């Protein structure tokens, strides 16, 4: 039972263009979402998050959009840079009474070509 899904295993974009990574979830009780970035042989690093009371959160080149009715979120990176090439994981945080464990999607491997 995959509660968080990233249906695109890979994405390739040109440097300078926009990268859009998508994520869907099934549990309407989720109210906090995160994106993590992972380079090979390293642990994931936190990138950006969004609470369900918002529909957008922006941090520099990274913007996360949340559509609660569609149970969908997306990460926009603009402009994309070669250093952004990594695997991106979408995650939902379990409700507080279940601890802060994260439920991850399968990841999308982004390749930004010069």
């Amino acid at each position, binding site marked *: 039972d995959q509660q968080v899904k990233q249906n695109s295993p890979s994405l390739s974009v040109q440097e300078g263009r926009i990268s859009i990574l998508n994520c869907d979830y099934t549990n309407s009780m989720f109210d*906090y979402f995160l994106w993590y970035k992972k380079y090979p042989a390293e*642990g*994931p690093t936190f990138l950006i998050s969004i609470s369900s009371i918002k529909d957008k959160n922006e941090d520099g080149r990274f913007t996360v959009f949340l559509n609660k009715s569609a149970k969908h979120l997306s990460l926009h990176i603009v402009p994309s840079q070669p250093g952004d090439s990594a695997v991106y994981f979408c995650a939902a945080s*379990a*409700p507080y009474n279940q*601890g*802060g464990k994260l439920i991850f999607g399968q990841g999308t491997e982004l390749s930004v070509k010069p």
Partner: protein
Amino acid sequence: GAGVSQSPSNKVTEKGKDVELRCDPISGHTALYWYRQRLGQGLEFLIYFQGNSAPDKSGLPSDRFSAERTGESVSTLTIQRTQQEDSAVYLCASSLSRTPTDTQYFGPGTRLTVL
């Protein structure tokens, strides 16, 4: 400051042997999580510790898996009688508390290969 560290970075073992993986969280972090990532898949929650509270073991896949944490310091994940399907990268994360908005910081992981 020092981040989350894990050891060993790589472990190759034979089927049926026991293995022990270690995690050193960031100092002062009361919450500690174990996840695993099998090839081509996302991270899968295993267990978490919060201070002196009883751990949440709901993600452990079988009774061959166990974990301990002493206070708010080191944690060890033990897998008994390893099977080939246990091959994965085992990741540890720590955060200030279990509050969802407290960022989880991950270690580099231990790559376990069961032959």
